[in-house]
C-alpha cells in the first residue's frame, strides 16, 4: 500500500445518480505519480461517468476528489484543466479546420500588439511537438493528418495545459498497430516525467502491454484495483463480467459449410462507383463472413445487398425466384434485415423509446394502416429486452441514453422482430465491451443454427473465423477471394488482403 501522498489524484466514495439509474455507487479510485492506470469495465459500467466526474464535465452527487493531497472540486473541464487534469477523448476533440499550431494554442495564442503572433505560435508549436518526436508542418490544417497524429496533438495540448494527470479515453480505438506503438512510446515518456495516466480501452492486450495497475468497474460499482502483473487475463475478464465467460469467442471453428442447397444466389451483382459486380451464394443456416480493410467495399456490399444502394447490374434469386432488392423496403419484404455499421447515424432513432426502436421495422413492413397495438409493442419490446439482455431501466427510455452495446442489441432486436431469413450485420461488435461482444457472437451462432442465412462484416478476423463457414475478401471495391473450409484462417485472410499491396503500392 502506497502512502497517501504518493497519489497525485484520488477519488473517494464518488456517487453519481442519473434519473432512473445509479451510475456510480461510492467508487474509490487512486492514481499514483508516474503510473499508467487502466480503467476497465463493460459498456455502461461507469468508466466514462467516473472520468466525467473527475474532470468536472458532470457534477458528482457525493464523494471527494483529492489532487496532490488537497481537496478540489472542478466545476467544469476548463477548471479541471487549470488544476492539472487533462483529457483526450476517442473522437479527437480538436478543430479539424484549424492548423496544428492553432489547435495547440487555441484560447491562449501568443499575442503581439493585441494580435495573434502567428510566427511565435508556430515556433512554440514546433518546439512542443518535437518533445513528442513529431516533426510535422504545424501550419497545415489538422485534418491533413492521420487520426494518430491528431491524437498526439491532442495529448500534447492536454499535457501542456494540465501537466499532472492525463486521461486517455479509448485513444487507440481507431489506430493501427504501428500507430498504437507510437502512442505508447509517448505514453511511456510522459509516465517517466511523473504524470499519472488513466487509460480507458477495450483492448485487453494493450492493457497488459502498457498499464501498471488496473481498476475494474461493474454496474457503477468498484470491483477492485490490482497490479497488472499479478492479474491473469482470465481473472481480469471474470472481474469485468462478474461471471465465468464460456470461452471468449464461440466454442471453436465450425468451418464445415452446412449441407443443403444454395438458397440465395447473386450473379454479377454490383453498382458502378460502389462495388464491382460479384457472385455470391448463401445457404440456409450459413454465416458468410466479409473481410477487408476500411474502404475496401465491405459496407458497399452490404448496402447493395439490402437495396440501400440500388444494384445496376446482375441478378438476385432466392430458391430460384428472382428477388426485388430495389430499396430497403423491398428487401425487407423479401425478409432481409440489415444492422448498419454506424449505429448512431444509420441505426438508432435517438429520441424514440427502446420500444419504438424495436417495433419500427416490423411496423414499417406491416404498413401504417395496420398498427401494432401498444400491448403488442410492449410484449415485443419486453421479449427482446429479456432475450437479448438489453440493459435499460425501462422500455420507454429514449434509446440514445443506452450504451453502445445495448443500442446494438436493440437494433438486432428490431430485425429479429421481423423474423428475417437473410440478415446482414455490418461490424456488429464494433465499439462494444467484452460481455456484449460474446453475447452477440453467441447470438449469431444461434440464429445460424435456427436456419437463418447471415452475412457478417467484421474487422475482427478471429471473430470471423470463429463463426463463418466461408469468408469473402474484399479489396479496392471488388471481391477478390473466397476462403472456405480448411482455408478459413486469420492467416489466409490477411494474406488475401495483403496480396493487394502490389497494386496499392504503385
Amino acid at each position, binding site marked *: 500500500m502506497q502512502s497517501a501522498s504518493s497519489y497525485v489524484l484520488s477519488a473517494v466514495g464518488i456517487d453519481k445518480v442519473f434519473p432512473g439509474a445509479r451510475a456510480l455507487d461510492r467508487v474509490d479510485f487512486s492514481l499514483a505519480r508516474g503510473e499508467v492506470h487502466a480503467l476497465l469495465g463493460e459498456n455502461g459500467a461507469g468508466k466514462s461517468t467516473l472520468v466525467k466526474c473527475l474532470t468536472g464535465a458532470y457534477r458528482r452527487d457525493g464523494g471527494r476528489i483529492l489532487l496532490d493531497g488537497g481537496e478540489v472540486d472542478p466545476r467544469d473541464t476548463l477548471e479541471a484543466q487549470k488544476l492539472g487534469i487533462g483529457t483526450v477523448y476517442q473522437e479527437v476533440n480538436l478543430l479539424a479546420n484549424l492548423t496544428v499550431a492553432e489547435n495547440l494554442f487555441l484560447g491562449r495564442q501568443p499575442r503581439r500588439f493585441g494580435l495573434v503572433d502567428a510566427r511565435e505560435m508556430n515556433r512554440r508549436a514546433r518546439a512542443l511537438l518535437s518533445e513528442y518526436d513529431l516533426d510535422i508542418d504545424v501550419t497545415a490544417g489538422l485534418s491533413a493528418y492521420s487520426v494518430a497524429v491528431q491524437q498526439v496533438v491532442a495529448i500534447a495540448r492536454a499535457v501542456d495545459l494540465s501537466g499532472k494527470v492525463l486521461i486517455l479515453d479509448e485513444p487507440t480505438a481507431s489506430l493501427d498497430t504501428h500507430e498504437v506503438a507510437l502512442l505508447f512510446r509517448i505514453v511511456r515518456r510522459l509516465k517517466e516525467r511523473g504524470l499519472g495516466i488513466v487509460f480507458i480501452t477495450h483492448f485487453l492486450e494493450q492493457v497488459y502491454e502498457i498499464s501498471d495497475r488496473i481498476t475494474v468497474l461493474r454496474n457503477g460499482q468498484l470491483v477492485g484495483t490490482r497490479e497488472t502483473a499479478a492479474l491473469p487475463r482470465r481473472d481480469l475478464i471474470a472481474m469485468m463480467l462478474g461471471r465465468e465467460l464460456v470461452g471468449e469467442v464461440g466454442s471453436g471453428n465450425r468451418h464445415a459449410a452446412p449441407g443443403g442447397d444454395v438458397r440465395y444466389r447473386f450473379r454479377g451483382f454490383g453498382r458502378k462507383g460502389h462495388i464491382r459486380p460479384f457472385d455470391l451464394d448463401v445457404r440456409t443456416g450459413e454465416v458468410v463472413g466479409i473481410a477487408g480493410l476500411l474502404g475496401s467495399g465491405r459496407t458497399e456490399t452490404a448496402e447493395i445487398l439490402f437495396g440501400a444502394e440500388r444494384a445496376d447490374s446482375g441478378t438476385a434469386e432466392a430458391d430460384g425466384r428472382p428477388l426485388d432488392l430495389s430499396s430497403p423496403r423491398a428487401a425487407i419484404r423479401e425478409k432481409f434485415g440489415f444492422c448498419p455499421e454506424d449505429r448512431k447515424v444509420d441505426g438508432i432513432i435517438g429520441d424514440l423509446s427502446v420500444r419504438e426502436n424495436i417495433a419500427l421495422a416490423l411496423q414499417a*413492413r406491416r404498413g401504417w394502416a395496420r398498427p*401494432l397495438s401498444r400491448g403488442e409493442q410492449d410484449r415485443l419490446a419486453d421479449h427482446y429486452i429479456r432475450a437479448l439482455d438489453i440493459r435499460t431501466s425501462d422500455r420507454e427510455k429514449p434509446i440514445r441514453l443506452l450504451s453502445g452495446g445495448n443500442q446494438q442489441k436493440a437494433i438486432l432486436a428490431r430485425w429479429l422482430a421481423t423474423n428475417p431469413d437473410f440478415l446482414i450485420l455490418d461490424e456488429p461488435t464494433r465499439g462494444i465491451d467484452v460481455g456484449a461482444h460474446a453475447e452477440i457472437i453467441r447470438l449469431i451462432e444461434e440464429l445460424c443454427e435456427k436456419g437463418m442465412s447471415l452475412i457478417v462484416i467484421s474487422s475482427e478476423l478471429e471473430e470471423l473465423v470463429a463463426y463463418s463457414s466461408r469468408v469473402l475478401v474484399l479489396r479496392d471495391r471488388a471481391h477478390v477471394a473466397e476462403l472456405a473450409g480448411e482455408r478459413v484462417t486469420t492467416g489466409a485472410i490477411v494474406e488475401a488482403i495483403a496480396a493487394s499491396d502490389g497494386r496499392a503500392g504503385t
Partner: protein
Amino acid sequence: MSATLKAYARRLFPQVAALAVILLMVSLAFPGFFKLEIQNGRLYGSLIDILNRGAPVALLAIGMTVVIATKGIDLSVGAVMAICGAVAAACITSGYGLAATLAITLGTGVLCGLWNGLLVAVLDIQPIIATLVLMVAGRGIAQLVTEGAILTFNDPGLIFIGSGSFLGLPMPVVIWLVFGLAVALVVRRTALGMLIEALGVNRRAAMLSGVSTGVLLIAAYMLSGLCAAIAGIIAAADIRGADANNAGLWLELDAILAVVVGGTSLLGGRFSIAASLIGALIIQAINTGILLSGFPPEFNLIIKAAIIVLILVIQSPRAQSAFVWFSRPRATAAGKAGEEAK
C-alpha cells in the same frame, strides 16, 4: 391505459397552464371576459371569439405540426391560403356549385402541398427554401386568379362556412375542432405518428428500417396544403371575398409559433397536434386579450412577443432541468413511495 393518459396530461400541462394564466390575466383587465350568452341559437362571448378568430391559425398549425415533426417547415401556407381563397371565389362567381367549388379549392391546396413535398422529398431541397418558392410565387398566383381585384361573392352556402353556426358554435370553430380531432385520431390510431416521428428524428435510419420516407414526407406537405386550403376558404368566406394581397398574410409565422409554443421541437420528432392547437389558442388569446384590455394598439406586438418569450423560456430544456433540480428531493421521495406501493 391510465399511464398513457397520465403521460398525455403531463405533455399538455404547460400549454394548458399558460392558456389558463393568460385567460385569467385578461379577465382581470376585462371583467366581462368569461361571459357567454346565446342569441338566435348561437353562443356569443369573448371566449367564442378567440376560438373563432383563431380558426385559420389553428388549422394551419395542424398541418404545420406534422411537417415540423418530419424536421421540415412550410413557409408557403399563408400564400396557399390566398391562392385557395382566390380559387374558391373565382369558382363560385363563375357559376360552379358549392360542392364543386369546395372540391376544386381543396384539390388546389393539396396540389400546392404536393409541389412542396416533391421539392423536399424527391429533389432533396431544404424545406425552408423549397417552401419559400411557393410563399413568394403564391401571392402572384392568387393575384392572377383574382385578376388583381378583390373578388367578392354572395353565395349563401360559401358564406355560411365563414359566419354560420352549427350546434351553437360558429362554423370555423366546428371545422377546426372536427378536422383537428380527425387528423389527431388518424395519426395516433394508425402507425403514422410513430413513422413520422422516426422519419423526423433520423431519416436515414428510418429509411433503412423500411419506412417509406419519401411518401410520408410528401403526404405531410399535402396535409399542410389541405389545411391551408380550408383556412383559405374560411378567411375568404368570412369577408365574403378573396383578397390576394392580404389573405393569410404572415399567418405561416403564427402557425410556426403555435407549433413551437405547443412544445414540438423544430428539430423534428415527437409532436402533439393537441398541444399545437392549444398553442394557436394561446396566440389568439393574447391578441384578443390585448385588444380587450384597452392597451394602445402600438403595444400589442411587443406585449405579444414578451409573453411568447416567457412561454418559450419556461419550456426550454435548461429551464426545465433547473425546475427538476429544484423539485428533486420531492420527486425522489415520491418515486420511492411509488416503488413501495408496488
